[in-house]
């Protein structure tokens, strides 16, 4: 049985911490960092990476196009 695994990469310096990705993530993967970037924004990051399925919801609603989404099909038990 194949399980879909995903991950996101956030362009931290361009993220404005708007949270729109946080609320659309069906797996509650994303949170805003306690740290801030160069512009003073609490940027988005994968707080819960194991749950990411690479569904692209976060990237799709990101107004600043700062999220790249990756996805693999991992074999369970392999």
């Amino acid at each position, binding site marked *: 049985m194949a399980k879909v695994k995903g991950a996101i990469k956030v362009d931290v310096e361009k993220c404005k911490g*708007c949270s729109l990705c946080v609320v659309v993530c069906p797996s509650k993967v994303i949170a805003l960092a306690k740290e801030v970037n160069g512009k003073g924004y609490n940027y988005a990051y994968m707080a819960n990476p194991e749950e990411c399925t690479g569904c*692209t919801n976060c*990237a799709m*609603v990101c107004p600043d196009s700062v999220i*790249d*989404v990756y996805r693999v099909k991992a074999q369970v038990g392999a």
Partner: protein
Amino acid sequence: MADINEIIKEENLVYSKSKILTDNIMSYCPGCTHGVVHKLVAEVIEEMNIQEKTIGVCPVGCSVLAYKFLNIDIQQASHGRAPAVATAVARLKPDKYVFTYQGDGDLASIGTGEIIHACNRGENIVVIFINNGIYGMTGGQMAPTSLIGMPTSTSPYGRDAKLAGNPLKITELIAQLPGTTFVTRQAAHTPAAVRKCKKAILKAFENVGNKKGTSFIEVVSTCSSGWKLSPVKSNEWMVEHMLPFYQLGDLKDE
């Protein structure tokens, strides 16, 4: 589990920034719908492979700076006049995909004449109309599309129809004009809405290729700075207040 570094590899990339977007940091406020719609326009241009054939016209308003973010030839236009500018471009360069990108103050107030007449002539262009019910760039003043009761800096006690008239559903007016072929109202606040909105933009650009006349896409949008709400709360407010009045869906598709 697979190591994250095992997943984040070029061959596993399923979504990334469009190549039609520049590397400039967008000047829009956090959560602004402009960014999403810019992205969708860029993705459509990239997927249709029409970078060489696209000319954008972006008038005064927050998106007057769109030329910094879209990697295509762009003309910045004066307030409200983009449809006139685009008319000439489309007529003088009929092989190009010409679009305007206008806000509600621009399109539905100062530029009402230009948009009505360009649509009525059926200019072969795409019109993208960002409706967030407020003037963003100048600091949150009342727009022609501000809702009744909506507080803005020039309607601080809420828009009063007796004083300021009613919110203008200009898209409904536009749909009546024989020159338009596709008139739709979209949003971009959820992944599903974004997908639908992109489909509409794609169809509109394809219509230009097929010389079908004017395609008009309203995107009901947020302005968290103007509305004085967080981006997430703005989306909620939009769903609760804007969408019942500005109902989503196609008004015309010929």
